[in-house]
């Protein structure tokens, strides 16, 4: 067994432990937080985790600055809800359709913007988000415009014979559902990132021309990553609609894209654990600061700027620095 293989094996063993700990923590959270306000925050946390890891896959792994993530979130929310309300489609089929539609929209935008790099893609995606928001506002016969859609039902109960009926009207169950999917998506992206696909994406992100010269089809993988990330946003959108129960276009304005971007950057772009922590921190911290006034977005803005300036690797980098310092401490003290 080569040393590299041994390292990998020990790393994957460690990862398994971390996953187990995470599952236990997630399972106990709704028991610790019983009031509906904090339970709602837990669900929002899980939604934001899905959004942030999706955006990070596009931005951190495929190197495409997508400023229109809110648009895919909105497409998933509206598509799934309208399918349920207007056509009577069952929730889970509508959920899958919303995801597929968001993914397809993301792939279309990416395919269209494949010739564009960096800033141009950023502005194209921003423009796309403005168009989606305006369409939601103005296509009143379909979306009811600024009045919004009300009384959206939670996902249907799951009844397994022999077990109590699982109702998603209950906020704890809803949290388990969304967090479960966040988990599923995390593991999926984690596997993708470690597969040859992840290596291809890294090569493209670092240098597209040399990646192409190694026979990597840059277009295909960039479009794939964009589609994947936006499909996740679509899933989050479908859950959002069924959790909040109302949909208004202003839930998906471009500012929402920026808050998701802040979660990714603050957590640590280009890692999967980073955006999870970023999403949790930037969802919980503003709630804790609520007493001082509506500082939520001030916190986001300040965090985003300061992190880019001083710790561009985000919380993941900060944790690494702290760990390195701690590891040095005993050595320093034994020397004296």
């Amino acid at each position, binding site marked *: 067994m080569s040393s590299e293989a041994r390292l990998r094996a020990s790393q994957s063993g460690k990862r398994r432990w971390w996953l187990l700990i995470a599952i236990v923590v997630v399972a106990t959270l709704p028991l610790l937080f019983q009031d509906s306000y904090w339970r709602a925050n837990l669900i929002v946390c899980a939604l934001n985790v899905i959004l942030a890891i999706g955006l990070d896959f596009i931005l951190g792994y495929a190197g495409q*600055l997508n*400023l229109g993530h809110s648009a895919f979130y909105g497409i998933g929310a509206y598509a799934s809800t309208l399918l349920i309300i207007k056509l009577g489609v069952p929730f889970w089929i509508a959920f899958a359709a919303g995801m597929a539609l968001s993914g397809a929209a993301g792939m279309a935008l990416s395919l*269209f*913007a494949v*010739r*564009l*790099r*960096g*800033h*141009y893609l*950023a*502005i*194209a995606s*921003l*423009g*796309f988000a*403005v*168009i989606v928001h*305006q*369409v939601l*506002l*103005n296509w009143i016969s379909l979306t009811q415009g600024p009045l919004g859609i009300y009384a959206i039902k939670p996902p249907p109960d799951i009844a397994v014979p022999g077990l109590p009926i699982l109702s998603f009207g209950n906020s704890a169950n809803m949290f388990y559902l969304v967090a479960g999917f966040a988990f599923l998506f995390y593991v999926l992206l984690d596997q993708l990132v470690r597969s040859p696909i992840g290596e291809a994406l890294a090569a493209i992100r670092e240098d597209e021309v040399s990646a192409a010269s190694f026979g990597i089809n840059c277009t295909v993988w960039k479009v794939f990553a964009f589609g994947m990330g936006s499909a996740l946003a679509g899933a989050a959108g479908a859950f959002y609609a069924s959790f909040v129960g109302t949909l208004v276009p202003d839930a998906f304005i*471009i*500012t929402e894209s*920026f808050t998701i*971007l*802040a979660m990714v*950057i603050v957590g640590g772009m280009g890692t999967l654990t980073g955006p999870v922590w970023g999403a949790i921190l930037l969802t919980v911290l503003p709630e804790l600061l609520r007493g001082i*006034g*509506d*500082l*939520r*977005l*001030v916190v*986001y*803005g*300040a*965090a*985003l*700027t*300061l992190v*880019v*300036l001083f710790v*561009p690797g985000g919380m993941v980098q900060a944790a690494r620095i702290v760990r390195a310092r701690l590891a040095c401490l005993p050595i320093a003290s034994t020397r004296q």
Partner: protein
Amino acid sequence: MLTVALQQGINGIVFGSLYVLVALGLTLIYGVLVQINFAHADIVTIGAFAAYFFTFVFGGNYLVSIGIAVIVGAALGWLVNAAIFAPLRERGSELLPLIATIGVSILLQNAMLLWFGPIPYAFDSPYSNEVIRLWGGTFITWQNLIIIVVSALTIALLYAFMKFTMMGKALRAVAQDRETAGLMGINPNQLVMLTFVIASALAGMGGAMLGPVLVLTPFAGTSLIVKAFAIVIIGGFGNVEGTIIAGLAVGLIESFATQLINPGLTDIVVFTLLLLMLAFRPTGLIAEKREENV
């Protein structure tokens, strides 16, 4: 019908000139740095508030307040460059400065929201209600005339500065090739700072003139900046002439779309135009040899 068309044409030029002022700043910065300053929007808003407070709280003259907004804008431009772009330049990342200025923008916007509140300020310029009658029943307010004249003069001055002065030539040299310009004895850092100051002064001026014709809230600049991005891309990033043409064109298109289609759809029209432009002619209206950016 002709009267309506003429009137919409005048309104389109008024908004078009404001768009040009704001978009020119973005284009100038992109020209020398190949970077986007997202906080440009908030310099516009702060310029508008500076003019508002100077006129209504301190009882100053509105025309002088435009000058105040220019100074405030220039100072903010200096600050944004010194605090964000200069430290990040060494790291050489394409996207980090843009992300950092998105943060600055969110911060400024919401700090203003806490401070000034969400209720729109009634910024009634003393010139808003006086009307000059023109041929065939069309008219223009003094405020709009001021916007057109001041913008046109400023743009002409800037153009002359870029074309004929030594410093303007140095700026264009840096825009074309920063390294070679450096070898020719031009200090790029100084010129980048100068660009930021000029660009942000234009934004402040735009804000002061925009306050009275648009709703003045902490978000006034943001609704404008996304449009300014569209204009900059339609005109060709870093291309001054293209930006002027595209800004006026977008003002006119908006004005006629409001009249002929539906006011709610103007943004959709403008941004569809943006996406089409990106699909078919990403170098902008006037193509430049700048393929490495595309």
